[in-house]
């Protein structure tokens, strides 16, 4: 489904991704973790070419996204993405947020788009809020709308960039619940998160990136959590810190 082959990326002189390779199969749920600034967000953004890379190749569902000739909007419309800060469009109502890209990008009729959008909204449990504006929702609700928005484009894969880290502790649960359900239904997912509970529950693989964008670990969930003695020192140190309190 997604193949990341030896990509490297620099911001000016600073290297933020170093020779990264990841392969994600259909139905995989891959959790990416690592310290702040290690390049997790950058990595996930390269998958639908929101950030260009200077070296390497990325193939999504058969399309080479790193090829300059690729029709990027088309690839992107098939990859769902959820951001740390939700990024709903604040000037549009919830329903409009759900339908605008379906109408303008996929060319669906407004009715069709609305039916599809509301179905997804119902799925995240927010049907009652369909006419509100994003600013009138809590963080957890906004993030669930953002997930519904991505889903209503019928993506082949979903990317999540720290979807719960901007949320009040109470609201983390409601968003993770939606994500767990999605995973269990077989959606292919790449998730940057520090929620190790989520990883334990549904991840098929866990990837650990260190500062400089180097992939230090890429192994199955069970291997990752059950055999800490096989992990690198850096990984153990990181896990200790985030699991301590």
């Amino acid at each position, binding site marked *: 489904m997604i193949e990341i082959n030896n990509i490297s990326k620099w911001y000016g002189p600073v290297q933020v991704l170093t020779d990264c390779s990841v392969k994600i199969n259909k139905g995989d749920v891959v959790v990416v973790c690592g310290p702040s600034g290690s390049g997790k967000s950058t990595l996930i953004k390269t998958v639908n070419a929101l950030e260009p890379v200077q070296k390497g190749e990325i193939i999504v569902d058969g399309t080479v996204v790193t090829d300059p000739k690729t029709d990027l909007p088309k690839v992107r419309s098939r990859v*769902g993405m959820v951001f740390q800060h939700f990024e709903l469009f604040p000037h549009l109502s919830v329903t409009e947020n759900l339908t605008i890209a379906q109408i303008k990008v996929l060319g669906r009729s407004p009715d069709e788009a609305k039916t599809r959008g509301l179905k997804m909204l119902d799925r995240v449990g927010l049907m009652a809020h369909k006419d509100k504006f994003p600013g009138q929702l809590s963080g957890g609700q906004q993030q669930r709308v953002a997930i519904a928005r991505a889903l209503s484009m019928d993506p082949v894969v979903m990317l999540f960039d720290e979807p719960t880290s901007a949320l009040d502790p109470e609201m983390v649960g409601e968003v993770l619940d939606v994500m767990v359900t999605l995973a269990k239904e077989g959606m292919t997912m790449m998730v940057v998160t520090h929620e190790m509970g989520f990883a334990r529950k549904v991840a098929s693989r866990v990837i650990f990136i260190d500062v400089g964008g180097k992939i230090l670990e890429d192994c199955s969930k069970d291997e990752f959590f059950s055999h800490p003695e096989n992990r690198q020192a850096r990984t153990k140190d990181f896990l200790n810190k985030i699991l301590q309190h």
Partner: protein
Amino acid sequence: MALDWQVFCLDTLDKEPVKGCFGSGKDITYLDWLLQAWGQTVIVAAGALIVALVVGSIIGVMRTLPDSPILTRVGNWWVELFRNIPLLVQIFLWYHVMPFIIPAFAGMPKLALVIMGLGLFTSARIAEQVRAGIQALPRGQRYAGMAMGFTTAQYYRYVLLPMAYRIIIPPLTSESMNIFKNSSVAFAVSVTELTFFAQQAGEETSKGIEIYMGVTALYIISAFTINRIMAFIEKRARVPGFVSNTTGGGGH
């Protein structure tokens, strides 16, 4: 200091008071003249505002386009050029110098020249605000638009610009008020607007204080009207639940 408001009722030629203060036909009073001058001010300001909004938006957007270094550069130079030369000098250039270099300008009516001069001068500032408005949006908004599969034109149209314009309503308000005030330099190239009237009528009647007060009152009324109109637009465009914090600025 006794003020002599009678001065507005005088005929502009024979300086005799006119009944009812309004003249007829070509026999105008200073009051008539004042209102005509106000009309000129409004025409200059409104025309320039339209030019400034259109050009400023285009240039402002150009400067934020990703991966278009040339357009960005052109936009940047446009802004630098038009905002680093005093308006008065720019107007003189349009009026006295351009026709000499490009003869086509000689045939343009002076009002059109002034509107263009003031409009382009202000376009630099509006471009700056449009750019700032777009850049004030969280970077994620652009990414979100792209991630939904929008093309560049689409995500500007549907995602970035609607919010950017809302955010910059306050600075646009002061810029619209500025354009009204800045239209006063049009008098330097013989547009018979309010400041021209203040000077000429003040001279002819020797009642500077009364004349200036009348003119100042009209400027304040104009500024206030613009302010109300913009406040109305801001209210109509308000997004439920959205709170933005913008910092005010200077400018005249």
